[in-house]
């Protein structure tokens, strides 16, 4: 046996962990090799030194801080907590890491929980290999231009819908409002000719939409019916956002938007007052031209707004140094101050998403070469960073989300290329070192809902090939429920409360069967078999009703009674539907948006749909509340 080989075995020899044959060989070698014997002696000496290190103890302040922290954030009563198998808390999926067959023996001598099983809320997994499931990978089907367009439209629509609780409906647009506002040239023309003399707006719930470079606030029951919110000298573009609703409120009361004419973020109250410019030029010294906004950098900035859950802070992406590499910033409304999170030397920042407790900010950081993107967890309390995953080209990050569980913060995301989602993964911050795979395959849709699966969070996955499994719900614990098999599912969506999933199964061009799955009992029913994909089916905000169109007629399906009723027809083409917030009496009103942007309110079949004095409703519609 060579010295080199013996040196490798000396440690195990010392610990008496070698097989008898190896042990004899090492012992024989040691008798004649002073070099290896010296190493072994050193190992013995150092083990002794390490064992004799004087222990250090924490000061009393650690105990004080720990227990005062517990007192401030009390734990749930133990009687209400449910046990989980201990192996749920054992690390993550890792393609390269050996499995841990002995884990249950160490953490639990009996894998059968001795207390009752989880009833409602399950903890997040720290992963175990047996939970890791894989969907067979098959080559993406070549789809027609029409199908690709439809997928694109669906993806755009879902982007609008997912994660924005106050979005009530949407209209599928081939051209974005930004393109509309920016036109074909480089110059950005401010909207003109609109008066804002009706501001401030009165208290109540109003919905907001973008038209001709301005945000408009509209109401069906309070005056004025329609008023421009944003000042005349700005041009609103990109992804504007209403702040999250405060507890007990129906909608948020602040809006954030980007003035693409001057290149600044603004925040404005929902009543149209106090329009405030965030004091950081988004593009630095460069002129904010339409061409610049359409670059990848411009798009990262336009799509970079993210309200903190409390609405006190706004994360945004900017490039004030004109370096071509946008960085991440946080604006604090109360102090009107901006702090840098991730300066641009480190890559291009994008997609900030706040954790549910508002302490952490997940974002994407792409290397200058564009070959790899890191998912970063930024802790606003200790201002520390953690790289939780790396995504390598050609796949890119599609969506980034937080688990709803604030006790065990976890980030979950989807990645893929060419519009097809390939992987859905999760990492539990501070407890996992590698992401855990939740799903793998070729999915035309991967839609996350934090409310799904009784508050555990879940992904709705649509197979792009209409394979054996066409639709499934994968929760963050890694458990999968097959919702549809072998169907050509073209669109799926969660209900707002994520208790239901509806999906379209295309039978021929633009005609589909509308299915509804009750996730509580798995019941799958066909709501209608001739449903148009434009306008898309839309849920009421309370998840009680689902409106859809057959192309000629609009219907409302009431979930509880499984009944369908038609809505009064209008002569114009309906291009989008959205619901008013439920009235105090619980009634919901459906609004019909025509292809010309006219608005009709439909309350039932007994009365004709009434035309409202609100027009130019296009793009996403979000609710606001004016206190």
């Amino acid at each position, binding site marked *: 046996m060579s010295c080199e080989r013996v040196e490798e075995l000396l440690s195990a020899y010392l610990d008496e962990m070698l097989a008898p044959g190896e042990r004899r060989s090492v012992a024989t070698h040691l008798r004649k090799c002073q070099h290896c014997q010296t190493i072994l002696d050193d190992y013995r000496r150092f083990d002794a030194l390490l064992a004799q290190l004087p222990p250090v103890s924490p000061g009393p302040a650690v105990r004080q801080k720990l227990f005062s922290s517990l007192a401030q954030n009390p*734990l749930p009563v133990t009687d209400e907590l449910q046990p989980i198998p201990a192996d749920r808390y054992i690390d993550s999926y890792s393609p390269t890491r050996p499995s841990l067959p002995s884990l249950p023996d160490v953490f*639990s001598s009996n894998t059968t929980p001795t207390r009752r099983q989880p009833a409602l809320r399950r903890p997040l997994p720290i992963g175990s290999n047996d939970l890791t499931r894989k969907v067979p990978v098959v080559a993406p089907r070549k789809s027609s231009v029409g199908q690709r367009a439809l997928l694109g439209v669906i993806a755009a629509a879902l982007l609008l819908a997912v994660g924005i609780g106050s979005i009530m409906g949407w209209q599928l647009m081939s051209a974005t409002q930004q393109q509309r506002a920016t036109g074909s040239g480089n110059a950005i023309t401010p909207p003109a000719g609109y008066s804002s003399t009706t501001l401030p707006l009165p208290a109540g719930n109003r919905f907001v939409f973008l038209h001709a470079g301005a945000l408009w606030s509209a109401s069906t029951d309070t005056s004025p019916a329609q008023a421009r919110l944003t000042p005349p000298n700005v041009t609103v573009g990109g992804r504007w956002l209403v702040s999250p609703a405060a507890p007990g409120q129906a909608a948020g009361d602040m809006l954030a938007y980007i003035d693409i004419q001057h290149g600044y973020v603004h925040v404005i109250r929902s009543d149209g007052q106090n329009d405030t410019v965030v004091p950081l030029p988004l593009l630095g010294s460069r002129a904010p031209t339409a061409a610049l906004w359409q670059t990848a950098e411009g798009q990262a900035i336009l799509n970079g707004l993210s309200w903190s859950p409390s609405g006190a802070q706004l994360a945004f992406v900017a490039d004030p140094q004109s370096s071509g590499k946008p960085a991440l910033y946080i604006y604090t409304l109360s102090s009107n101050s901006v702090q840098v999170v991730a300066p641009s030397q480190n890559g291009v920042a994008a997609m900030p998403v706040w954790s549910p407790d508002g302490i952490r900010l997940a974002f994407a950081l792409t290397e200058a070469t564009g070959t790899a993107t890191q998912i970063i967890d930024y802790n606003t309390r200790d201002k520390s960073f953690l790289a939780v995953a790396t995504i390598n080209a050609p796949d890119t990050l599609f969506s980034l989300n937080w688990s709803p569980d604030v006790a065990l913060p976890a980030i979950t995301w989807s990645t893929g290329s060419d519009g097809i989602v390939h992987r859905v993964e999760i990492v539990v911050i501070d407890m996992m070192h590698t992401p855990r795979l939740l799903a793998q395959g070729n999915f035309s849709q991967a839609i996350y809902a934090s409310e799904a699966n009784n508050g555990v969070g879940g992904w709705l996955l649509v197979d792009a090939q209409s394979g054996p499994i066409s639709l499934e719900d994968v929760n963050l614990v890694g458990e999968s429920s097959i919702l549809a098999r072998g169907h050509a599912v073209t669109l799926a969506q969660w209900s707002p409360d994520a208790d239901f999933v509806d999906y379209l199964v295309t039978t021929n061009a633009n005609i589909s069967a509308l299915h509804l799955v009750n996730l509580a009992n798995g019941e799958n029913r066909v709501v209608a078999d001739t449903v148009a994909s434009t306008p898309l089916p839309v849920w009421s905000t309370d998840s009680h009703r689902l409106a859809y169109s057959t192309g000629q007629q609009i219907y409302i399906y009431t979930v509880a009674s499984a009944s369908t009723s038609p809505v009064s027809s209008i002569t114009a083409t309906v291009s989008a539907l959205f619901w008013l917030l439920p009235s105090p009496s619980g009634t919901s009103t459906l609004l019909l948006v025509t292809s010309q942007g006219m608005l009709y309110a439909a309350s039932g079949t007994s009365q004709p749909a009434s035309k409202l004095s609100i027009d130019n409703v296009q793009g996403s519609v979000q609710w606001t509340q004016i206190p």
Partner: protein
Amino acid sequence: MARVETKEHTWSFDQIYDEYKTPIYNYVYHLVGDREQADDLTQDTFLKAFRALPKMDANLKLSAWLYRIATNTAYDALRRRKLIAWMPWQDLDHEPADVESADPQEIYGTTELVRAALRRMPAQYRAALLLYTQEGFSYSEIAQALNIAESGVKMYLSRARQSFREHYRALEQGGGNT
């Protein structure tokens, strides 16, 4: 105060803290090499444990589980430190004391040399060595705490001893810049 049952005991959080505060703190301190950071990490470890503990199986082996959380918490702190170092505008807080002085033996006693050598080792090997020599863990327990296969522990400990020996000898001989 909430109480938690394990197969070994019915514990209050106070009792758990009092029982494990010194070994966990000691372990975490030697992993990160900084008292102030060890304070924070010890607090984080127990906070995470107390939050998760009521949900755990009653047959949980508390000790191994606590070390696992402590290891992960310390690793993440070290990874964060690396990432911060990668971001040049950030000052590194609470860096370990500078051990690269010219005459280490005049400055350090044996204990300090051991600690300095530990700090220079790769973190995962450091953890394995500490768990084995200081905490008396078996290979199986080390595998659980570090989330590696039991067969990997042999390799970890071998590399750990080689690394420790290399750094300790360099420090002993005043070659602190290795």
